[in-house]
Structure formats: structure tokens, C-alpha cells
């Protein structure tokens, strides 16, 4: 009797899901069940196979083996349309929204038969408004997506799923880009959804969130399901061990000894880039031997600040001094010449050239000077020696300097970039999302290198959307919102919630 009841309660069953990409097994025979009104957390570090698994469930990928059942019916593989029709909705980590179309258009997309005229917008708008009210997802249906904040875009993503009457909601790292307050609001929405009988799969690598929202935790490691525990029967410590297979040693920087100001911005403004704000009269001091952490919701001007320090953008107003001298003719090349080492946000698109070898990538910033070239003639042997040194010193795992860099893992790619930047002996280091998407070993390595650079006297600016990372590494913290910069907060002087208020743009009026 109870067995039968349980079976009816099961809304989703995955059995023996296996997915290989070339030699890599991303998912290895994974099976689990989801019950009605349940929130399960899928926990695992980057590269553990969480997103792949959910992409199989949602039909973006086809599994090599195994099957998916939704409400007792097998789900045809490789068809997001079928998953949607069966009541599975997914909120992707990278939002799947068309920027120059309205909220309503994005929600309506694909919901009606293609071959007919007219859109039934009136009824749709009423339904969206009702859902928005019921679930606390306020957003203007006629606004263009491009004009919305990250938090609002996520609400649209959830509305998209609810509009299609999703009964199972998959959320892939939904809190990665939110303020602590927005995260709380999201959890409130999710609790309302569960109360209405929805089931939720919550993908995350943040232990405290997993503990707070889920009733059951599945832990993935290297593509395998290594643990399945009830949330109230475990704790963060045990989950961390399951996730990484060893105890997590958080990097703990020693006390900093700040020196002179190496980079000073006084009242600097830069133009907006499309929908993203530029800098708005920013004052910033970066001191030798200090890590300045920049917190903030993505798209609030961090990109503009990174572009400024990288040399991609010049100030339209205000002054920029590097090591006490005013900069002129600002460009990426002059930025490097002024001793700024730049770790870009996107190592695939900006940091490296995929089809180039490690050697060619290692000399991207210094190729025009000896020992890599002489009067316009490349010296490939010099370049190769340099690359071999980087590979050795920074522990880049690769077949050799002639390997195309696209064949490397994210962590090894990042190590090569670190080598390229650090070997040039920078006095100022811009680290923009330096550990995003890396596995825990690489994260620790990169963070330790940044701390070592600080201890060696470099001024480090760490930009991260991950508030925990900013809190862990920074000697001082600034918060950015709509291109404005908060006052400097010393380490330990602010709680995450207090910083969240600034991230939401709310302290600035008082400060002004």
C-alpha cells in the first residue's frame, strides 16, 4: 500500500543515465527519483556533471544510455519540446532570453502552434500577471529584456516555465548572480511553488544554500552519484567531504601589509556599453600588497572597470594615475607597459585563442619584443622556451607547448594565463572572475597565486560575482552598483546581508 502511494508520488525518475564526450564520461550511470512537492539539491563542484545531467533531462543532450520517466511516462530523448510538454521547466544558468524582445514575447515564444496568425496576447498577459502575483515575480510584461536587471531576467525565466504549467522546475546555479536579498526572495518564490505541488531540482555548489532550501541532497563527483542524503540528517562539513572527496581547506590569507597607492582613479567616468552602465564618477585606490575585492551583481559596471584597467576603454572624465604618473594614450598595450597584469573574465573568448598553440598564446602580450621577436621577425625558439618555463612553473598539464590550447581543461588554460601575466612581473593585477567554472583544485591554486602576488607587493583588484569568494580573499571590499563605487570596507566589518544592501544599490544615496 505504501509502496503504491510512493510510486504515485514519484514525478520524475532517471535510471542509469550515462553520457560521454569523447574520452570524458560526464555522467556515469546516474539514477534518482524526485517526489511531488520535494526540493532536491544537486550538489557538486564545477565539472562534476550537474549541468550535463540536467541538460539530458531537459532534452538539450541525448544520453548514451539510460532513460528518463516523467509522471510514469518515458520522455523521448533530445527534445526540449517534449520535456516542456511533459511539465519540465528549466531555468538555465546562462539565461535563454532574446534581449531586444519584450518579456511577454519571450514568455510566449514557442507556446503556440507556429502555423497560425494572431498571438492571443491579451489572455497571455492576464495569465502572466496572475502568475507574477501568485509567486511574487514582479516584472513589467512589456519591458525589453535588455533593459532588465539580472534578478528581473531570472524572474522572467521562472515565469516562462510557470506559464507552461511546469510541474517540475530545474534551476541551474540560480543564485550565482543574485544579491543575498534576491536569493532570499527567490527562495520565497520556490517555497510558494512547492506549496502548490511543484517539485524542484536545485543545482548548486554553495553548501549553505543547499542546506537552506532542499529536503534531500544528491552529490555528484566526476560524473558519478557519490551520495544521497536527507538534508536534516547531514551538515555542511559532511556534504563538502562528499562533494570534493576530501576536506575543503579554505584559503586563508594572512594579514596584509598595504603599501603605497599604485593605481588611483579620481572621478573617472566611462561611457555605457549597450544596456550595461559605464563607470559613474569612480574614486579608487589600489595599494601595493593589498587585495581589493569588488563585489556586486553582474552587469553593474564591473565590466566597465575591468575594461578601463585592461586598456580597452579610456576615461571620458576624471583622472587615472598609475604609479603616480598620469596615463596617456590608454590602450591594452600601454596598460601592460604600465605594469598591469590582466586576467580576463572569459578565458575562452578573451584570454586565449582557441586554435593557437600554448606557445602562441603564451606570447600574445609580449610577442613584439625580445626574446620572442626581433625587428619584426618572430623568434619561436625563444617563445617556446618561455612557454616551457610557464608549463613547468605553473603546473600546466598538457602534452607540450605545441598543443592547441582548446584541448586543455579550464583550469590548465587559466594556469597558462596566470603564467603569461605573472611572468611579465606586473605591479598591479586585475583578476576578473579568476576562478569561475574551475574545479576546486584549480580554484585553490589560483587563489593562492593571487595571495602570493599580493605578498610579493602587487596591488590586486579581484572582481567576482561570488560574494563568498570576495569575503574570503579581500583585504578591503568595495561594492559596485550601476557604475558607482561604495566606500571601502575593511575585512570583517560587513556581513553578507549588509553588503547585499549595497549590491542592491541602496547605500549610495546616504553616502552621497
Amino acid at each position: 500500500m505504501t509502496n503504491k502511494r510512493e510510486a504515485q508520488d514519484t514525478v520524475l525518475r532517471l535510471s542509469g543515465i550515462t553520457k560521454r564526450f569523447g574520452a570524458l564520461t560526464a555522467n556515469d550511470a546516474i539514477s534518482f527519483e524526485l517526489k511531488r512537492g520535494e526540493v532536491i539539491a544537486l550538489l557538486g563542484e564545477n565539472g562534476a556533471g550537474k549541468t550535463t545531467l540536467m541538460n539530458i533531462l531537459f532534452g538539450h543532450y541525448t544520453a548514451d544510455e539510460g532513460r528518463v520517466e516523467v509522471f510514469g511516462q518515458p520522455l523521448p530523448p533530445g527534445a526540449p519540446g517534449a520535456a516542456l510538454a511533459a511539465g519540465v521547466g528549466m531555468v538555465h544558468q546562462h539565461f535563454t532570453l532574446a534581449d531586444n524582445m519584450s518579456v511577454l514575447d519571450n514568455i510566449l515564444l514557442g507556446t503556440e502552434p507556429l502555423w497560425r496568425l494572431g498571438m492571443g496576447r491579451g489572455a497571455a498577459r492576464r495569465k502572466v500577471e496572475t502568475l507574477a502575483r501568485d509567486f511574487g515575480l514582479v516584472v513589467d510584461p512589456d519591458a525589453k529584456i535588455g533593459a532588465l536587471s539580472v534578478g528581473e531576467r531570472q524572474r522572467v525565466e521562472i515565469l516562462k516555465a510557470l506559464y507552461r504549467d511546469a510541474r517540475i522546475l530545474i534551476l541551474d546555479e540560480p543564485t550565482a548572480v543574485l544579491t543575498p536579498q534576491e536569493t532570499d526572495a527567490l527562495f520565497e518564490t520556490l517555497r510558494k511553488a512547492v506549496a502548490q505541488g511543484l517539485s524542484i531540482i536545485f543545482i548548486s555548489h554553495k553548501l549553505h544554500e543547499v542546506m537552506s532550501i532542499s529536503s534531500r541532497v544528491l552529490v555528484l563527483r566526476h560524473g558519478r552519484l557519490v551520495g544521497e542524503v536527507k538534508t536534516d540528517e547531514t551538515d555542511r562539513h559532511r556534504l563538502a567531504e562528499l562533494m570534493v572527496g576530501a576536506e575543503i581547506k579554505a584559503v586563508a590569507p594572512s594579514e596584509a601589509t598595504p603599501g603605497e597607492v599604485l593605481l588611483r582613479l579620481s572621478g573617472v567616468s566611462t561611457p555605457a556599453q549597450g544596456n550595461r552602465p559605464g563607470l559613474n564618477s569612480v574614486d579608487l585606490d589600489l595599494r601595493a600588497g593589498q587585495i581589493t575585492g569588488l563585489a556586486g551583481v553582474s552587469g553593474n559596471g564591473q565590466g566597465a572597470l575591468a575594461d578601463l584597467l585592461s586598456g580597452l576603454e579610456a576615461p571620458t572624465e576624471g583622472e587615472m594615475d598609475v604609479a603616480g604618473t598620469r596615463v596617456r594614450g590608454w590602450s591594452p598595450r600601454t596598460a601592460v607597459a604600465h605594469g598591469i597584469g590582466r586576467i580576463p573574465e572569459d578565458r575562452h573568448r578573451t584570454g586565449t585563442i582557441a586554435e593557437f598553440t600554448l606557445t602562441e598564446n603564451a606570447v600574445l602580450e609580449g610577442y613584439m619584443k625580445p626574446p620572442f621577436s626581433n625587428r619584426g621577425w618572430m623568434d619561436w625558439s625563444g617563445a617556446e622556451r618561455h612557454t616551457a618555463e610557464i608549463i613547468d612553473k605553473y603546473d600546466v598539464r598538457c602534452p607540450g607547448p605545441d598543443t592547441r590550447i582548446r584541448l586543455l581543461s579550464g583550469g590548465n588554460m587559466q594556469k597558462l594565463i596566470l603564467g603569461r601575466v605573472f611572468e611579465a612581473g606586473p605591479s598591479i593585477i586585475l583578476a576578473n572572475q579568476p576562478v569561475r567554472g574551475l574545479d576546486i583544485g584549480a580554484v585553490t591554486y589560483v587563489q593562492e597565486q593571487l595571495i602570493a602576488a599580493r605578498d610579493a607587493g602587487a596591488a590586486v583588484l579581484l572582481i567576482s560575482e561570488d560574494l563568498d569568494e570576495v569575503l574570503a580573499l579581500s583585504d578591503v571590499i568595495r561594492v559596485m552598483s550601476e557604475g558607482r563605487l561604495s566606500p571601502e570596507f575593511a575585512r570583517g566589518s560587513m556581513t553578507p546581508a549588509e553588503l547585499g544592501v549595497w549590491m542592491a544599490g541602496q547605500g549610495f544615496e546616504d553616502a552621497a
Partner: protein
Amino acid sequence: MAEIIDILLSASFWAAAVRIASPLIFATLGEMICERAGILNLGIEGIMVLGAFAGWMAVYSGAGLWTGVAVAMGAGMLFGLLHATLTVPFGLSQHVVGLGITLLATSVTYYAYRLALPEVTSPPRIEPFQPLEIPLLSEIPILGQALFAQTPLTYLAFVLAGVTWVVLYRSPLGLALRAVGENPGAVEAQGLSVTGLRMGAVIVGSGFMAVGGAFLTMSAFSSFFFEMVNGRGWICIALVVFGAWKPGKAVLGALLFAAFDALQIRLQQTGLGAEIPYQVFLMIPYVLSILALVLMSRRAEVPAALMVPYNRGER
């Protein structure tokens, strides 16, 4: 100056402008549909050549005029299918494939022409579409003759522009088409097929281009010459940009462009034509196209995913 005003006030001038605009409207709409879905179709020039030949040849072989139009469209769609297969699922360079399609379609056309008519020195003529005067409307001064005394194929061009607008902005299909050129990921996440939408757009768009070519042999002239398309396809690509990827503006752009073209043809016969070499007049359309591109460059609302191939589940 007085000569120009005389020309601008004559009904025949405006009738010529609308006639010259018609093939451009077909092909520009076709290219616009492709680009709205995210695919640049540089096969346009060759597909127009092919359409011009296929429609004309069908009629010359005894088919009806409308059957000829259908044959041209079918031929265009076939090459559209080839283009779409290479650029959508395989994601090959749209530049290279497009130019390759133009070369292939052109050479296949010339080959077929030589096979079909090995002996002739001057191409045979067909009985083309005749002007169809719409009662009452065609009697409006100037405008009437310009707009309502054209061949059925011209009317079709304007109807097609209207239909394209309605589909694009007032139907779920159009919403999906616009979205797939902006963010294919969004389309796939909503359960629609990126490949299907993009391939469909390229195939239909190529069909439109071919009808544009067929207009030349079946409505504007009555026989097929080599070099008769003469860069019109490339001009249409400029017109898509000039029309900001919108059907209404594209039609206006084509009309404006055609008016300049009609004007230069007439100016050649005036006193000006005696003083200035005719080649200068012939350059005007091409120069205008470049100017249009330069003018629109700052305001262009390019579909965000134009020329970005979509590989499902790319990691």
C-alpha cells in the same frame, strides 16, 4: 534642373521606378528573411541568375507563366536547401558557402542554357507577363499609372511584402523567426528547433530571391541574357541593411533606389548624357548602395546572432 523636374513629374518615370523596384523587393525580402533567422545568404546573386533562367526556360518550353514562377521558386529553394544544409547543421562559414552557391548556381545556369540552346546566337523571346490595369485606381494621375498599371508579378511583390510583415510581427512563426536570429539558445530552450527554423527561412528566402530573378526574364524583359542580374543581388544585401531588417523600410528602400536608377536611365537621354560618359550613370546604383551602407552603419539594428552558427549543446 528643369529636365529633372520634368522627369519626376512624368507617370512613365514612376511606373519605371516601380518596375525596377519589383525584383529588388522580392530578393530583398528573401535576404531579409534569411538574415532575420541569423543566416547571411551570399548565394543571392547566383540564385537570382538561376531563377531568371529557370522561370524563363520553363515558359519557353511550353509551361504557363505562373508555372514558370513556381519553377523558378522551386529551383531557388533547392539551392537554398543546399546553402542551409551547409551553414545551419554544419555551421560552415556563411561567407564561403554563400559565394560558393553563387558560383555554382551561376555556372549551372550557364551550363544548362548552353545545353538547352546550343546553336542560338541571340536568345529567343517568350510572351512575358502583361500589365494589368486595375480599374479606377489606375486612372489616378501619375500614381495610378505608377502603381496600378503594372504586371501581376509586381503586385505579387507588394503583396508578399505585406504577408512577410504580418507573419513576422503578428504570428507565432514570426516571433520564433525573429528570436532565432537574436538568440537561438532561447528558441531551443522553448522547445523549438533552431535547425528547422533557420533552414526553413533560408529555403523560403532563397525561393523569393529566385522569383526576383524570374521577374527580370518574365516581366521586365522577355528573354534571358548572361550578366542580366548584374550585381542586383549584392545591391539587395545593401538594401536589407538600409531597411534595418524591416519589410516596410526594405520596400521603401527598394523604391527609392529604383527611382534613382530610373532617373539615371532617363538622364542619359538628356543633355547631361551627352556631356558625361554613360558609365558614370551606370555607376550610380552601386555607389548609392555603398552610401546606403555607410549611412546606416551607425544606426543598424543587426540581428544579434547573424552569422553566429548554433551548435546544439555546445560546451
